[in-house]
């Protein structure tokens, strides 16, 4: 009898070569956007930025199974790569950071990092951490109540995981087996507070079983592992088997934000060592091992990402500033067109 040939890891997960290259491409683009944000911030064009560097692998991979314009995403302020994976363009993101009038997220009203977009099924994000988690659960409740095949994914940090609302959200999702995926991007710090002063028991994933659903810890630097967990979670949600909590262990390559300096509270050696865990580097290596990526192709993809961010920035900068009269609109629907 013919034995099944051992497949490459991504193929085992049902991903084609093109798929994994597209994932890599999304990561590269997210990084290019992120780096551009820092440049613009230093150039005084953006008052404040908050970065997703180090989280891209986990974000792209956990968002990958979602169906665009069908499922829902309730992300957080580091979710550049998630937003890109779910349909936002580099131009959308730079436009929002520049607070232009036609910014799809808020029309220039929110700070940088507040992703959201009705056309993309991305819930508008606020700043108080964790509030979006209940929105995802509410969307999943809506789908459950209507018998509709929709899954909601929400993401947040390990500090945020301790907010009471996040717990209430998980409990409710557990009771009704709602189709929701909780993705905790654990980068070991909440601004300056390290995991051991933040998370009793040190594991966020361990909490899921207290609500009666699976919690898994994955290496956030291994996008295929993240994808596998998210794919299973997505299928579980669709099957009506309820939520999943995925704790992706990632690194925060930068300071918390442009207002922070992590050298105040983090060992220089620790900061230096982070670079070894850059998911872009790791995923690039993996794709080479899988025979999917060559140095040439890598350079080409990087050049494409660079071209895209250049073009996106150029266009975003050319967009109009918001009209001051817009500031009093959209408080209530009354009287709006």
């Amino acid at each position, binding site marked *: 009898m013919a034995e099944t040939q051992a497949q490459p890891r991504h193929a085992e997960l049902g991903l084609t070569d093109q798929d994994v290259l597209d994932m890599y491409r999304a990561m590269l683009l997210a990084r290019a956007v992120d780096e551009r944000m820092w440049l613009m911030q230093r150039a005084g064009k953006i008052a404040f930025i908050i970065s997703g560097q180090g989280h891209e692998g986990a974000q792209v991979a956990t968002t990958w199974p979602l169906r665009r314009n069908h499922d829902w995403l309730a992300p957080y302020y580091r979710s550049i790569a998630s937003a890109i994976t779910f349909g936002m363009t580099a131009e959308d993101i730079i436009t929002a950071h520049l607070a232009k009038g036609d910014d799809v997220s808020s029309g220039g009203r929110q700070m940088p990092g507040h992703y959201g977009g009705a056309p993309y099924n991305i819930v508008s994000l606020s700043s108080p951490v964790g509030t979006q988690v209940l929105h995802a*659960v509410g969307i999943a409740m809506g789908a459950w109540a209507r018998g509709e095949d929709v899954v909601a994914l929400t993401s947040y940090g390990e500090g945020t995981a301790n907010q009471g609302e996040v717990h209430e*959200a998980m409990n409710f999702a557990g009771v009704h087996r709602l189709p929701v995926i909780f993705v905790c991007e654990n980068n070991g710090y909440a601004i300056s507070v390290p995991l051991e002063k933040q998370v009793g028991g040190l594991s966020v994933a361990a909490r899921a079983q207290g609500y009666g659903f699976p919690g898994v810890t994955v290496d956030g630097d291994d996008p295929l592992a993240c994808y596998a967990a998210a794919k299973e979670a997505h299928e579980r949600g669709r099957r009506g088997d309820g939520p999943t909590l995925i704790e992706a262990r990632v690194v925060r390559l930068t300071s918390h934000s442009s207002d922070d300096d992590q050298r105040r509270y983090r060992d220089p050696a620790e900061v230096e060592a982070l670079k070894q865990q850059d998911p872009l580097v790791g995923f690039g290596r993996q794709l080479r091992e899988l025979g999917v990526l060559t140095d040439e192709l890598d350079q080409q993809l990087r050049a494409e990402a660079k071209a895209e961010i250049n073009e996106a920035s150029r266009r975003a900068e050319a967009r109009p500033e918001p009209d001051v009269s817009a500031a009093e609109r959209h408080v209530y629907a009354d009287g709006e067109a």
Partner: protein
Amino acid sequence: MAEMNILEAIRSAMDEEMERDDRVMVLGEDVGKKGGVFGATDGLFAKYGEKRVLDTPLTEGMIAGAAAGAAIYGLRPIAEMQFADFVYPAFNQIVSEISRMRYRSNGTFGLPMVIRMPYGGGVHGALYHSQSNEAYFTSTVGLKVVAPGTPADAKGLLKASVRDPDPVMFFEHKKTYRLFKADVPDGDHLVPIGSAEVARPGKDLSIFCYGYMRTCALEAAETLAREDGVEAEVVDLRTLRPLDRATVLGSVERTGKALVVHEANRFGGFGAEVAATIAQDGFEHLDGPVTRLAGPEVPGVPYHHDLEEWFMIGPAKIVDAARALAAY
């Protein structure tokens, strides 16, 4: 015309709206099988099933936040806070999220949802089952705040709230639930949000009130007419936010004197806004100081019957305050 009390009016408003629009759902603690601790949702679970009348876990933050998510998804949730006093765990969702979702998303995510708030004292509920905490919400831009005082208004305003594209905090004074029955128009009876009602015309002074205070003010007005020959105009605000400025200022223009009455404590209460509005925009019509009559400056209604009596605003206190103002 059907006679009903306020509780029945509220129940029938929800029932009709659920019939009319299958996106309307009810969620809260004990709203299902038990039909709510006051019976407001009695019968709805049997009629519409769990997926539209949902007993939630004991978590108000979740109730408000999941309702918001459901509204984003396209439903029209009616969330019940079991008592207005227990809304605070949901405060973050209401203030940070629900009130400003439309604004922050540049108008692309509106939240059509209602939060029902059984409030008020005089029910032996003490500090935590008696609160009139409307001021936390009336000062919050992005919310609408409604507080009916009659069965017809309760029904018509609740139906309008369910259909409103924006979030409405719906205050139901517990003491009025079964206080009296009155006619409620048949059919699809709607009362627009944002309109006050002159519940009793008068020429000598204006009494501004809402909720249970409507009943007390009307009774006080009868006493004033009978005993003092003072004709008080009673204006039931009905909607607190947005305030019907035209009706309020129009009344002051007629009477020259304003008495603002509520049960919540005075300092920073909603009456401050009404009084300040009149003081600024009705200044030229004023023949006396804009006067506030409100609950005492203590953190809550105390339990013991005598202490609760001391706390509560009723017709007698209104008569006293009105007399002093009329005599100014």
